[in-house]
């Protein structure tokens, strides 16, 4: 587990340090150098250069920042949405619970990737977003985070609802109720701490899933738009050049693979630690 945490922290630190390293070296990850395209590894370019002569190592660090930001932001947002839905459904019960859980099951039952493609391809100008905003790089980031949340919130919702149902009737919650504690206080102080462990596991696992989802959307041309680059969009750029310079695809692919497998293994290790009897996740 320490090894995994270390690996993830290393990847995150490298991604965050990208701009600093670029500044110190006086290099620019976006600097085009057409005279040195497809260069092999050298002292100035440790991993060589890409099809526009940009430094591969700096580009990977930049791409990692985007991929990890999307992964972590969407995982946290999905956990927050799911927790809100799960707490509401589990604590209030009755028809609120029934409606919310039918909604959750409904979302789980949908073929999500094809539907995401429709959402990802929407013309934002047609829903009243100005052209400048619709074309800004920030909005493509926000769009991917929102799409990922749409897919991922259901796991947390079901987990939290289940745990809330179990906790709701426990004596310490009854005691708090009889002492006159308000609903927000009970949810926050008494119920939420009891669902934290499985929630942390699910969120860790979902970071990896979201990074994969982002790479798929980027591959389909619906992900992060230039000038921003993520590992996914770097990989899909490299696809056309795969025969002449396969290394351009190998680097970002390896980074995605390492990050996702580290998240998955870390989630599994946390699961075993919190609940040694827990069944393995598929």
């Amino acid at each position, binding site marked *: 587990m320490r090894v995994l945490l270390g690996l993830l922290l290393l990847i995150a630190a490298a991604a965050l340090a990208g701009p600093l390293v670029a500044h110190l070296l006086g290099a620019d990850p976006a600097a085009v150098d057409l005279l040195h395209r497809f260069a092999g590894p050298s002292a100035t370019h440790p991993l060589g250069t890409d099809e526009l002569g940009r430094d591969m190592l700096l580009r990977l660090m930049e791409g990692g920042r985007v991929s990890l930001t999307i992964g972590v932001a969407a995982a946290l947002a999905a956990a927050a949405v799911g927790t809100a839905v799960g707490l509401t459904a589990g604590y209030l019960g009755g028809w609120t619970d029934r409606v919310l859980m039918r909604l959750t099951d409904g979302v789980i*039952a949908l073929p999500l990737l094809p539907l995401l493609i429709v959402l990802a391809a929407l013309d934002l100008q047609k829903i009243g977003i100005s052209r400048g905003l619709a074309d800004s790089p920030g909005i493509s980031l926000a769009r991917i985070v929102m799409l990922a949340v749409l897919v991922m919130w259901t796991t947390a919702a079901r987990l939290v609802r289940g745990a809330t149902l179990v906790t709701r009737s426990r004596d310490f919650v009854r005691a708090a109720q009889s002492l006159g504690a308000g609903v927000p206080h009970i949810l926050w102080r008494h119920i939420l701490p009891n669902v934290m462990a499985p929630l942390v596991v699910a969120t860790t696992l979902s970071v990896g899933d979201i990074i994969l989802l982002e790479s798929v959307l980027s*591959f389909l041309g619906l992900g992060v738009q230039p000038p921003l680059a993520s590992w*996914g969009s770097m*990989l899909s750029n490299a696809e056309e050049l*795969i025969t002449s310079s396969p290394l351009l695809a190998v680097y970002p692919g390896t980074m995605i693979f390492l990050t996702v497998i580290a998240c998955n293994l870390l989630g599994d290790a946390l699961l075993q630690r919190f609940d040694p009897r827990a*069944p393995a996740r598929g």
Partner: protein
Amino acid sequence: MIRFTVIRLVEITAMLVLMSFVIYALIGLMPGDPIDLMLSADPHLTTADVARLKALYGVDRPLLERYLAWARAVLSGDLGYSRLFLTPVAATLPPRLGNSLILMGSSFVIAFAASLGLGVAAARRPGSRFDGAVNLACFAGVSMPTFWLALILILVFAEELHWLPASGTGGGETGDLADRLRHLVLPVATLAVTSIGGYTRYVRAAMRDALGQDHIRTARAKGASEARVVWHHALRSAMVPVATILALSFGTLVSGALVTEEMFAYPGMGKLIFDAVMGNDYNLALAALLLASAVTMLGNLAADLAYAWLDPRVTYS
């Protein structure tokens, strides 16, 4: 049980109707509309022509009115015409669905057979080095971007070694079976490798649970051979959760291979949906998305029914 099934079928129908409206509305928000496409194809169209065409295609009418017109046509059996393929939608879907079923079906069988062997073997030696290796390999499988794996397979087996074709379904005019099979190898391998991991982890977990149960100890105490205990007694109870997962993944058969189909230019449902959405082919995209949703939801229903059928303790009321 029948009551449960009927209620679920009604729910699925309601869900599909709701979805058809939502998707219809969303597709209207995609860049461009049919008239834009005609305009770009024919520069001689005048503003008056555009207005006439808009009226002809009903683009100028309100959303609900257009949707109801579409729904009426669909209910009378007319799915419309595909602008992308210049064929009726109803004739475009079946061959694509067939291709997807062949692709997903064969990778599913291979992945399931492999995961059964690996999962059972790992569960019999929990904590062993073999178990650890299988576990790590499973995580590697589920952590791999599908298109990256496809890219590497194409690079190695198609570009470098020239052993296998990288795209299409092959078969040519004569429907040569050997050629079709050769075209299936790489996409099937891609799908199988990325799904074995998940299945194996389910089989292993279910098998470990099953091997810890009392009736297994009884079977061993009665002197049943280890093979009989594992494959007859334990596998049976392990199959309950496994069957559920399998039925669930069956639901994604239609659209699950979207990325793989796109990578290998394999004409299945996933690629069809992607091309239709990207190509502004409203009629086709709508019908294909609804078909994919219907199959997925029916797969989920099948999962619930399989669960109750395999485990008599489960009842739905």
